């Protein structure tokens, strides 16, 4: 129920609506709940509404943290094998 998917905003429409692309599948959603949405933004879409913008800097930061944790894991495995 709370599942939501990231989608690319391609065009703003009147009445706080927007066209989005889900890997090429186009849909019209409401962006009334998120301030300052612009084409090129990624938003999290739930039951036809954008709920939040994806922060591209924080997304990259998360991937960096994941890589860091993975490196620790790899090192632990290597140590155990040695």
């Amino acid at each position, binding site marked *: *129920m709370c599942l939501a998917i990231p989608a690319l905003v391609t065009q703003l429409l009147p009445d706080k609506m927007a066209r989005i692309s889900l890997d090429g599948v186009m849909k019209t959603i409401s962006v009334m709940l998120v301030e300052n949405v612009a084409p090129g933004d990624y938003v999290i879409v739930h039951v036809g509404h954008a709920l939040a*913008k994806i922060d591209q800097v924080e997304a990259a930061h998360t991937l960096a943290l994941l890589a860091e944790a993975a490196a620790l894991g790899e090192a632990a495995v290597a140590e155990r094998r040695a």
Partner: protein
Amino acid sequence: MKYVNEYRDGALARDIAAAIAAEVRPDRTYAFMEFCGGHTHAISRYGVEDLLPANLRMIHGPGCPVCVLPVGRIDDAILLARRPGVTLCTYADLMRVPASKSASLLKAKADGADIRMIYSPLDAVRIAEAEPDRQVVFFAIGFETTTPPTAVALKTAEAKGLTNFSVFCNHVLTPVAMRAILDTPPAQGEPPIAIEGFVGPAHVSTIIGMEPYREFAENDRKPVVIAGFEPLDVMQAILMLVRQVNEQRSEVENQYIRAVTQAGNATAQAICEEYFEIRENFEWRGLGVLAASALKLRDKYARFDAEQRFAVTTVHADDNPACECGSILRGQKKPAECKLFGTVCTPETPMGSCMVSSEGACAAHWAYGRFREHQARSATSLLPVS
């Protein structure tokens, strides 16, 4: 798909699993609850449980709105749908939830009731606008994630001056349910559950932010790590929880930084505040009647309130007595421990709500977990043996 695929990388998942395995202390156990059905689904679908060390247990929580909605409210929706002139709009998840006397919305529709499955609450507004002779009722359910879209529908209906649109409001509140999980003593004959921390909600938190979870970290000493719904998000959150427990910290941390902020979505909070207020009491399947745990429409919007317009008086109805949904929602039983699981109760013929919603613990175990259990008996773990 951008912002999805990179958080599903299997090789990375194995390395993070190795990091978790390296950091858990062998002399103790860990038990964390993933509150949301979305996390339960990810854990089952991607086999996250198989990647975790044996002394770390994930307990499924009640964060599945279809699962926690009590039978009495489904009965109400069916009665509403059967009224002449009423069109009931609902999310598809609710269609097959068993109601009293083996009824369901799906069966009511087959019997001729005008029930329509919608994707967005705005679809219900559009139907009301296109069919002014029908009384269109939107069957609104969901946690804080799903409440703002209902508020947008109300605002839109108000702006359009619609007089044939109303909302049957069943929106519920996450922190109250987390509190109930921690404070409710186990039912007779059930063992107490020792939860040491929560994997906190992903999309609920995009709306409410981090502050509402502080009481659990500060007063109950239960760490909360808000996590996204992709498998690597969940694994990173588990690693963060293990670190908090090992370092005897209990803080609210945010793994889902790409979408969740400290304060949440102020625009969404404001529109919900405009249309809804706290309901005195609301019944949850598995958790019983909880005070201040749900929302209703404010008095000034009574004209949009289906409960007032159609004088709905909810009557409590019992679950099928053999169904273990209640214990499963409290984290006290696993799906396979229910004697109906996989025999009488399957996704095709569900006896309980946990088998209906794809986020339900039983549906997740049916779709993915049961195969792994079978394999686990013969296969060796993916993890290097220490």
